[in-house]
């Protein structure tokens, strides 16, 4: 245990069971982005899956929205220490996106409009763990929260849930993304408190 601050009491809540270590609960939805919010018109939007040398699949907004979607309610955990419980999203499961794609790649590099990238093991995107989300709490997803569409991977810190997503590159070798190259953890499991590089 650390240094005790005698006059510090802090705020605790009864719902802490669901709170990963070092997080606090918020009811707001704070924004964290490294640059200006890109504005992407739907008639120019596209989403691609590639293997690094060729595009394997491509959707425009209409063909993407024609895919079957799901509504999920999940908890969010941001590395800046806020957590938000019970957020409801509509999106297309990555299992649906990857249906019919055969790959032996182990890693994914997700890239966004505005040039943001983030990396994760491909298996973390599969089996109902990740969605390309386009609605939040029954509204179209606002640009500052990643609209028109963002990745949603709620079991990892929220920087992995890339806003303004435009594609995924499948890779045999892991390659760090934006924050992963700037001192943040390569994997980012909130329950193991993997915030910064060097955390176990």
């Amino acid at each position, binding site marked *: 245990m*650390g240094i005790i*601050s005698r006059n510090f*009491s*802090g705020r605790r809540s009864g719902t802490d069971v669901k709170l990963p270590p070092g997080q606090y609960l918020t*009811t*707001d939805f*704070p924004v964290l982005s490294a640059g200006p919010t890109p504005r992407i018109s739907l008639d120019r939007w596209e989403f691609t899956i590639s293997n690094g040398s060729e595009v394997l699949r491509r959707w425009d907004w209409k063909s993407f929205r024609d895919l079957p979607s799901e509504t999920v309610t999940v908890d969010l955990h941001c590395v800046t220490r*806020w957590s938000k419980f019970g957020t409801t999203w509509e999106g297309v499961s990555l299992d649906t996106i990857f249906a019919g794609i055969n790959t032996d790649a182990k890693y994914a590099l997700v890239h966004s409009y505005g040039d943001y990238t983030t990396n994760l093991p491909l298996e973390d995107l599969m089996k109902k763990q990740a969605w390309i989300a386009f609605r939040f709490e029954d509204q179209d997803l606002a640009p*500052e929260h990643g609209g028109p569409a963002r990745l949603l991977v709620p079991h990892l810190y929220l920087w992995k849930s890339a806003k303004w997503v435009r594609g995924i590159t499948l890779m045999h070798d892991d390659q760090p993304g934006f924050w992963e190259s700037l001192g943040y953890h390569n994997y980012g499991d909130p329950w193991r408190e993997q915030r*910064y590089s060097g955390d176990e």
Partner: protein
Amino acid sequence: MWRVRTVTALRDETATARTIVLKVPDWPSHVAGQHVDVRLTAPDGYSAVRSYSIASAPNQEGSIELTVERLTDGEVSPYLTQELGIGERLELRGPIGGWFVWRPRQTEPIQLVAGGSGIVPIMAMIRSRVASRNAAPFRLLYSVREPGAILYREELRALSTQDHSVTYAYTRTTPKDWPRPPGRIDAAFIADTIWPANVNPTCYVCGPTSFVESAAGLLVASAISPEKIRTERFGPTGDRK
């Protein structure tokens, strides 16, 4: 890793903001714009952590300064701005962050845009420029609610007599005889005060989310290219800054 650090001085900057000076004898040094995590632990073991920007330039003196704005509903900032005393110890982790930073080797023109306590990491950049005798031209656009909310007022005044301009924007109350009525910064104000796009400045924008959304959008609209704009936002519940 978490390290125990001792408070060596406290300085009130405004009615709600306090600078905390900490002794950091084995500090790995930092880059202007980085932050630290501060951990407070209550007598029963409950602990809370928040991130705060470093306000001071890298120095040889083994000290760093944090400026903390008190949030009325904050969990950590009321303690840091009202209860904490000189000689007390805090747990710190850092420095952290490698994106919203300015390094003395940068020589291009710099446009700084701060909203409220978003000035803190930007002040570290200004101080780092002075300390490193870097000649890069800096401009600061600093938006505050009212004159009494300005942080580092005297220091900014002294600097702005050099090749370093500071422009204030007031959102609620202006000083007497101020030429511009109170209000949020808009496209015309941006056009009048910031580096023109053809100078190709690197821009750093820091403040509350709504301020950064608006200011960064205005910079893009003024033809500054988005990849030259770095942002740092803090939400209403985040104690950051």
